[in-house]
């Protein structure tokens, strides 16, 4: 079992209830898409699984471990097995792409190796391979602020591919890419997860992409699971109910993608 949630509830510090009474069960090697309108709790759920947020109630088990049982070193060890892909990859603007990718394995490296690699990148081969999978090999020595939003997202993905975690969490990983590239990139991500028998959970705002690349889809609405089905079983009514009173986003174009702030890379 990769992820097991029973009765999980998440209240944000401002009192907003992001998730309530969540029951979820995802097996090792599964590939699951999270869909739902913005504010439905997709990001909250992913950050909860990434051990960034602590559930306010309920039981959470990730990779057979309870992240919030006492012991800082156990949490750290667990975190090296989880890879989180951010919608706007938080990469320092002046950092070089190779360093940004190598940062994926900091949890596995000794402190000395990390520090030396900062001045002289040690595993250039590994970074190169991860970037080559995403067709970014020629950007190896460029700075992050020289890349476009879509290229940055791919660097963020390359970092997690390099980390090679057992659980890949992706928060709108292709939102800044055009539809063809987005589909291609999701395919790479799915193939990587499949080849290593890793679990992949991705939130997407494009239903087309979710149905195309993922065997299982979970619909979230206002912090609760609206449906949780294998892809062939999903009906148009399911989707309509998910987005009722919202703008239906069947053909949502990725033009609404984020524009990364330059200072943040």
């Amino acid at each position, binding site marked *: 079992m990769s992820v097991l949630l029973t009765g999980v509830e998440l209240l944000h510090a401002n009192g907003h209830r992001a998730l309530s009474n969540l029951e979820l069960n995802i097996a090792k090697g599964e590939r699951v898409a999270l869909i739902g309108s913005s504010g439905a709790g997709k990001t909250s759920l992913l950050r909860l699984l990434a051990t960034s947020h602590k559930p306010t109630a309920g039981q959470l088990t990730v990779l057979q471990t309870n992240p919030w049982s006492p012991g800082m070193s156990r949490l750290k060890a667990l975190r090296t097995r989880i890879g989180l892909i951010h919608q706007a990859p938080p990469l320092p603007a002046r950092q*070089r792409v*190779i360093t940004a990718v190598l940062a994926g394995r900091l949890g596995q490296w000794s402190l000395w190796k990390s520090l030396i690699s900062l*001045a*002289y*990148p040690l595993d*250039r*081969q590994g970074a*190169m*391979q991860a970037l*080559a*999978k995403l067709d970014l*090999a*020629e950007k*190896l*020595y460029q700075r992050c602020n020289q890349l476009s939003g879509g290229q940055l997202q791919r660097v963020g993905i390359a970092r997690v591919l390099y980390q090679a975690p057992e659980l890949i969490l992706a928060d709108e990983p292709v939102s800044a890419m055009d539809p063809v590239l987005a589909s291609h990139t999701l395919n790479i991500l799915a193939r990587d997860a499949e080849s290593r028998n890793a679990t992949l959970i991705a939130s997407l705002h494009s239903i087309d992409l979710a149905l195309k690349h993922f065997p299982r889809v979970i619909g979230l609405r206002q912090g609760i699971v609206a449906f949780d089905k294998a892809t062939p079983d999903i009906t148009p009514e399911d989707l309509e109910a998910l987005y009722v009173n919202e703008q239906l986003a069947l053909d949502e174009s990725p033009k609404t993608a984020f524009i990364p702030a330059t200072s943040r890379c």
Partner: protein
Amino acid sequence: MLTTALPRDPAALPRLGISLLALLLLWPGFHLSELDIPGLFTGENARIMGSFLAGFWPLAYDSEFLSIVGKAILETLAIATAGMTLAWLVAFPAALLATRALSVSALHRQGRPSWPGQVIRTVVRIILVVLRSIPEIVWALLFVRAVGLGPTAGVLAIAITYGGMLGKVYAEIFESVPADSTRALLLGGSSRLQAFMYGLLPAASGEMISYTIYRWECAIRASVVMGFVGAGGLGQQVDLSLRMFAGGEVASLMLTFLILVMLADLISRLLREPQR
């Protein structure tokens, strides 16, 4: 999966070069500065310093000492104020001479002043540079030799250094003010001084006052420090107490100094804000 040959890191050589250069510079720097941090904490030094620091508490506050401190505070304030007054007397005419804003010859030469005017301006500017570039405490040291120990040396040192600074900044302020009204007055046949009084000064005075007050605050800090070369004020008292290893007195004086600087900062901010 490896599609491309692995390119070499283009930053490796520059980084190596910079590191070597840094080491190359660091080594003589280390030797010349005779830096010895562990020496502070070993042997005799640590013992002396320890007993000295232990003397910091209790603070000295007997009435005799406090009256000395009071006099020193007044003297410090007086040095700063008197020094600034003399500095202003140096700076104001110098700025009038140094600024291009009052050039009559520039009016009918497309803004390019004639060469005699240019020479005078350059000479005055060079003098101002020399006055302000030699640190005030060097001037104080010189004046202590010339006019003897005591606050007069401090006043003269502040007058000279701050005269140079104020002169430069005043001249810049004059030139940054819109020149139309001054030019109109000069073209209308008024004298330079008249054009200055009626055209330039009203526009420039706010900024000048603000900068002068800010400098006055700096002068207070400077006059504290100048006492170390014998130019009067609080610094001289700190120096004396240090030499006598009177920890409590040093601590009290430091505290006084902090309060004085904070007060000057407060007053200067209060005075400058309504100008904006």
